[in-house]
């Protein structure tokens, strides 16, 4: 029996189990008690109410299209065209996100290592974060010209602040005893970062990654609003300018799904590669 079996067995036996045959809550209540079912049921209920309200009150589709009309909106362009739009947005979001990680983590290491550097750089970071990136976007597009580069830059600017702050916090949250252990061994300073501080920051980095990855989609869309000839953001803007509101809504649905998928991918990566970082015990 492996260790996982033992811990799984002990944790499941510790959890109180709902008695199936006890009188009490009705069938519906018990079905709803199953985790995972509640959010799905809520979601379906909202869609139903939405659909019925649109039909009963005859809400014009340019004010609020019914869910069924939004589904029709998907048919406005071909599947090939959709893939092209989605890929344009997704690739910019992912490139910006990757660039942001590549910049934010080294900056966080510098901030954590040197108090002087931290005092020098931190105000600059706060200024960048305080700048409304939406307002800077047109300037960046003009300066950097056409192509993906300015869009990636905008995405990166929007996503990197939470990453820097969280990673720095994580690097500083390392137990002082481990730093003393490292010093007592007279180990190279780089190993203090790679073998102690960075792994300790992993849970902090992942909570920031979950925020940043959804911000990355926002960044890509903002950039497309300013200047683009494809992408889901572009599609939404184009649709509204043509007064095809249900079409714009279908674009919005695609964006939401994209954000959710990316968020879940980050979750999955943490579960697969850093399962220990999900438990607070044993630290």
């Amino acid at each position: 029996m492996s260790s996982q079996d033992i811990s799984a067995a002990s944790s499941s036996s510790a959890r109180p189990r709902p008695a199936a045959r006890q009188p009490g809550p009705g069938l519906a209540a018990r079905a709803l008690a199953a985790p995972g079912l509640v959010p799905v049921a809520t979601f379906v209920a909202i869609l139903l109410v939405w659909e019925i309200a649109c039909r009963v009150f005859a809400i014009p589709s340019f004010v609020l299209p019914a869910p069924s009309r939004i589904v029709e909106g998907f048919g406005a362009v071909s599947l090939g065209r959709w893939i092209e739009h989605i890929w344009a947005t997704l690739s910019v979001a992912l490139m910006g996100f990757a660039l942001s990680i590549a910049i934010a983590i080294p900056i966080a290491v510098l901030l954590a290592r040197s108090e002087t550097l931290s005092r020098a750089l931190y105000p600059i970071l706060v200024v960048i974060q305080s700048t409304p990136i939406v307002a800077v976007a047109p300037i960046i597009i003009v300066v950097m010209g056409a192509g993906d580069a300015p869009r990636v830059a905008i995405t990166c600017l929007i996503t990197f602040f939470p990453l820097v702050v969280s990673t720095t916090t994580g690097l500083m949250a390392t137990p002082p005893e481990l730093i003393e252990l490292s010093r007592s061994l007279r180990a190279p300073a780089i190993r203090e970062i790679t073998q102690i501080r960075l792994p300790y920051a992993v849970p902090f980095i992942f909570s920031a990654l979950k925020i940043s990855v959804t911000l990355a989609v926002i960044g890509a869309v903002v950039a497309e609003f300013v200047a683009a000839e494809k992408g889901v953001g572009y599609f939404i803007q184009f649709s509204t300018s043509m007064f095809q509101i249900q079409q714009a809504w279908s674009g919005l649905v695609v964006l939401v799904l994209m954000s959710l998928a990316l968020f879940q991918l980050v979750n999955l990566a943490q579960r697969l590669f850093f399962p220990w970082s999900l438990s607070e015990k044993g630290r």
Partner: protein
Amino acid sequence: MTPANDRPGDPAIVFDGLGQVFHTRSGRTHALDHVDFTVARHQFVAVLGPSGCGKSTLLRMIAGLLQPTSGEVRVFGLKVAEPRDDVGIVFQKPTLLPWASAEDNVVFPLRHKTGRVDAADWERARALLTTVGLGGFEERLPAELSGGMQQRVGIARALFMEPDILLMDEPFSALDALTREEMGFELVRVWEAQPKTVVFITHSISEALLLADRIVVMSPRPGRVIEDLIVPLSRPRAGETGFQNAGKIHELSGHLRSLLVQRAA
């Protein structure tokens, strides 16, 4: 690293007029004042004192993590100016790496220092885990181990670099009373099998009496040595054989308690 004088009985650690003043925002804190004593090689010394008497400061100065403001610490005749290779530390909390298995945690000092761990090192790590009673738990993560087991891994980690001096900073204070006593017996067993100079910080009189050859009692801040006694109890002090010691233990703990209480008042 160990100099030629490795006959047991030669001084391992010498505290020579040691003083430590910390400058904090709220002013100067006099942590230690004129601490003078000598620890023989392979002696088990308990440093007993109330919280905040500078016991941990003393430990960090032996480890070379902190420089005294006056006086000096000599280890095997050499002034401690930086951390040494022959000193192992066990902290109050186990502070294991949560992502690393028990055996990974034991070899960590070597991996951290040199970046290389070979098959013989893994073998040694597993043997050490067996020594501290964790045979079969090599691949468990810290989260899957109890507090006592985690601290056993912490002890194995400290022993892994084969230190001559083992520094222990209230290592069992976070454990429940039963586990604590059991860990004490285990520690003495390991120490008898692999003699080391042990400096054991504690604020528990019974723990000091159970474990140590010698007890150094410190006063509240600024920490001074107010008593230095050889524990006149035969080993093993555990279990039924401990009965013959009961009278002496009672007398000694009364004496130690009066010292601690008097000074705290």
